[in-house]
């Protein structure tokens, strides 16, 4: 499992609708903030890159120091699954993204979930963390 990993789902309109620190490293507030800053900045690169490829998994698209940002873009380009990590387990990250994407689609199918609003489901959270343990 990666020591540092921060996972964020960004909706269209660039609102983070789900945030989770899934690394095994001890949680530090300023580190978590830095992670979010890096992910936020990486959105600029994603927005250009997403249109250049048909692949949903964009691999590592940005980095700051040792931290790498990998992104998975859903088919409608609007929702971006972003992972900040320090390991180079490409396959694991890809599987992680794919499974989380499935989870996200299930959330979308919930008629009580308003697309674009925050995902507050604890079930979703638990599943994502389990996936992170499994793949990262």
């Amino acid at each position, binding site marked *: 499992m990666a020591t540092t990993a921060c996972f964020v789902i960004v*909706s*269209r*309109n*660039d*609102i*983070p609708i789900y*945030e989770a620190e899934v690394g095994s490293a001890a949680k530090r507030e300023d580190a*978590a*903030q830095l992670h*979010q*800053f*890096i992910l*936020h*900045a990486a*959105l*600029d*690169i994603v927005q*250009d*890159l997403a249109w250049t490829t048909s692949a949903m998994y964009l691999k590592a698209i*940005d*980095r*700051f*120091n040792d931290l790498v940002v990998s992104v998975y873009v859903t088919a409608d380009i609007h929702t971006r699954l972003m992972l900040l990590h320090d390991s180079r387990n490409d396959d694991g990250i890809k599987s992680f993204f794919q499974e989380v994407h499935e989870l996200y689609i299930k959330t979308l199918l919930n008629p009580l979930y*308003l*697309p*674009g*609003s*925050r995902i*507050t489901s604890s079930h979703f959270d638990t599943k994502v963390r389990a996936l992170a343990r499994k793949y990262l």
Partner: protein
Amino acid sequence: MEPDVSIETSSMIRVAVLPIGHVPPVLLRDYHSMLLRHQTIPLSAISSFYTEHQKSPFSNQPWDSGSLRFKFILGGAPPSPWEDFQSNRKTLAVIGICHCPSSPDLDSVIDQFDSARRAYASALVDRCFAFCPGDSQLEDGSKKGGNLMLFPPADRATQEFHLQTMMQDIAASLLMEFEKWVLKAEPAGTIVKTPLDSQATLNSEEVIKAKKRRLGRAQKTMGDYCLLAGSPVDANAHYTTALELARLTGDFFWYAGALEGNVCALLIDRMGEKDSAVEDEVRFRYNSVISHYRKSFIQEHAQRVSPLTFELEATLKMARFLCRRELAKEVVGYLTSAADGAKSLIDASDRLVLYVEIARLYGTLGYQRKAAFFSRAVAQLYLQQDNRLAAISAMQVLAMTTRAYRVQSRASITEDSPSKKEIGSSLAEGGKMLHQSVVSLFESQWSTLQMVVLREILLSAVRAGDPLAAWGAAARLLRSYYPLITPAGQNGLASALSNSADRLPSGTRCADPALPFISAIQQEKTGGAGAANTGPFIYTPFSKGDANTNTKQELIWIVGEPVQILVELANPCGFDLRVDSIYLSVPSGNFDAFPVTVNLPPNSSKVVTLSGIPTSVGTVTIPGCTVHCFGVITEHVFKDVDNLLLGATQGLVLSDPFRCCGSARLKNISVPNISVVPPLPLLVSRVVGGDGAIILHEGEIHDLWISLANAGTVPVEQAHVSLSGKNQDSVISIASEILNSALPLRPGAEVTLPVTLRAWRHVLADADTAGRSGSGSTVRHSKDGSNPTLLIHYAGPLTNIGDPATNKSDVPPGRRLVVPLQICVLPGLSFVKARLLSMEIPAQVGGNLPKPVHIEDSPTEALSSPTKMDRLVKIDPFRGSWGLRFLELELSNPTDVVFEITVSVQLENSSHDHRLSGDRDAAEYGYPKTRIDRDCSARVLIPLEHFKLPVLDDSFFVKDNQADGANSGRNSSFSERNTKAELNASIKNLISKIKVRWQSGRNSSGELNIKDAIQAALQTSVMDVLLPDPLTFCFRLSRYALEEPENSSSHNSPNVQVHSDAAKGSVLAHEMTPMEVVVRNNTKEKIKMSLSITCRDVAGENCVEGTKATVLCSGVLSGITVEVPSLQEIKHSFSLYFLVPGEYTLVAASVIDDANDILRARARTKSSDEPIFCRGPPYHVRVVGTA
């Protein structure tokens, strides 16, 4: 590292610009900006200043197209250790700037400049520009000569021209200096060193190596000067040589430097035109530059000095060169690797410069978030330096990031993002909007980042000593992120706000509102919609339409009259919030708002009424409130809160501030468009005698005086009174003419309007409760809903009469005054039942026909008659008998007061001449009062008279006849129905004349509403009451008839007491008594009939016929066939001989032949075959004996 580097930097001559003496900062900036216009001086322009002293080393100088470039450094820069390596790092010229008025002594200026330029050893040219010299200074300065250049005061254009000349002079001097330097350097081979070269003792091998390298380095330096002199071809030649030599000697650092110069020369030569071939060439060579700088890294020097900065600079130069949207990916690659280098940089200021440059390049690329990220890194570096200037820089840099992080101060938002404004306005109008557009209001809300950035802004602002910025940041932090901040943190922010405010002058305004949250809420009067929403159903079909209509509503305010708006304030934080003052903010300025002070406990909300007075005609827009809280004045816009609440419903915002305060969900509204109209009159109503509810008994008639006073400043010119609400018919009269006659009602004037009321029927439910409570004394207020209201619409004078163009046809606004008539109805007399009593008293057969008593008898005469009751016994003129008919009403009095009942029959002046009372004026007949004590019942008799129609004709059965005329006898049910309708109309007419008035005490009187009861009582026998019989039979003694001919038909004869007449008509026994029967036809048709007369004795035996007949007769008594013409009478004479004295009764009867429909209807026959039998009333004959 140096800021703002690019590939072309190598060709720029560095000039230090130094203020000499005191120069006001504004002027210094102004002079500097004048200098900046001359960053590029074309070679062609300086040829006049240039003198070729010796053969120029710049053989290929492009005099027609080339130019010299300057880089002005305000305040100068300390000498760089690397200036030998890159000559453009040397400060080659010094320009002093002096503002003469503030430094009068030119000598001291010269001294100061001398000492200042001494710090720049490498400077080849120095000048001191003195601006705005006085006359004496001009004189003085012209003598001084030397480096001091005086700029005589002149207009800007002249000064600029002057400056241009000076700069061209400087450029020429520099060019000549460069030539000298290159010529000197070529043969000598100047020793050039960099910090990279070891200063330690060189061993012999290294000395030899250094000598070899020296040639290459000299060539590179000469190339630099060529470049500075604007001769790229010469530079290129030198660089090429230098590259060769450096490669041979393995001098990678200088190789890279020469290559950089080479690329710069290439670009200068191409005059900035960039084709893809050049771009590829530049890219290729610069990658080589970067790799050679990397190669030159020497491990042993790593602690002291490193070529890393040059590598990073080269990377940044490359990135800047390529910085275009199409090449974003490549640029990002360079910038990412540059950012990686930051870790290895030793000097913090180098890192600062690096981050600044990266941020700028990302910004140029359009990557705002990346730029913000590195800007924030810059700010953090600034914050690590613990001084105020760094903090100010940090604050300014952070302020630039706020846009990317969406935490802008409102002050900076105002111009940009018009789209957001549009959304906001459409939101206010539409009421409902698409989810997408709601979302767009909250675009890019990374709350964690936003909080961090705001906190850093707060920190830097506090350190920088900028209380206003600190206040704004703390306010934004508190307002937007209170749910994420612990109560302790909230308290900290609150104290930060107050601390900042302490350092601000009072009355400071800040663009960013803090707490509380303010939302305009609905006035409670339109609670209907709200009530619908609070129902048990999730969806109500009514709520949507209501929401639309509510938002569309427009308000009209009146100049000079106070108005109120309800707002709800919420403090969702954990500290006591004191709002020093809050008032409506009206940018249009025609409104005086009254401030209010509010205290909000932690986690609470409050509804506050904000009021004010419109001051002038026009429109008023109320976007929000002005709040003075935490020592600063802020604007709170309602729309923001509306958006916030919308976001909360969509799950986009952390929390709804109002709901988390536990406030009931009040319907928030957007303040509608408000227009202010000129002053209007204002009527104030007051019920004379107290505003409390008037307690009235059922049917009581009461006069009410409503006093109307004009409390406005304008007279009332028009007024109209109307009624609304329930029980409108209980208002009998409103003397609106009094109001109209009082117009125009001046300000302060008062008018009293009498209103007559009649209390309506007591509601059954009320009666029940009253009954249950045991006694009728329970004062139970009837529900307010049943009260009628008086509406008075009124208006002031027409405005703008002098300006007909503007007020074409617009009606001036008026107002409505609603005066509820508060009436409480108590149960009064209650009606038990009504019935019709009738009796017939047989008439005496006398000489005369019984005379009908006519209503023309004057009341006075009637009153004067000794026995009033006698008047009630009247001869039925059509029937010929004494008839007495009463309507008996049984009334009970459940109340605790005494009632007196007066019955009156009102006879109106009718134009129908067939009415008996046709020629009479309206008159009332009073009867004795009946008194009903409390808890008693009484019967009231209403005599029914004067109601007979004179003729039985088809007017009564008009519909009936028509139907029969069409096809006779077709359907009787139809005619029956018509008959009924006609009957009902007649009954109503009859009933409306009967008034039962009551009086209780001195001033309480009213009328019983018993129409229904009377109608029910009369329904069955109305025909008898109303209609005359078709035939009237009368008996009389013939001898009297002869004596008084024509008298019977005279209606004008004075009233004669009936019984006196009857007394005369006594009959003697044993005497032939001639008599006659008079049959009158009351219809308009001729009637054919067979008449028969019977005489009965006291026992009721027929005494004319039979074996024991006691009466002998002569003449025909039975089966007399007669024909009576319409409205005529016939006489039939006969004689009777009474054998025995006593009482006899004469009865005439007839069977009508060929009866028409009217007669049938009157006789209520079922079938047409049935004979119509008419019977007259019995007549008494008293036979007295002869003895």
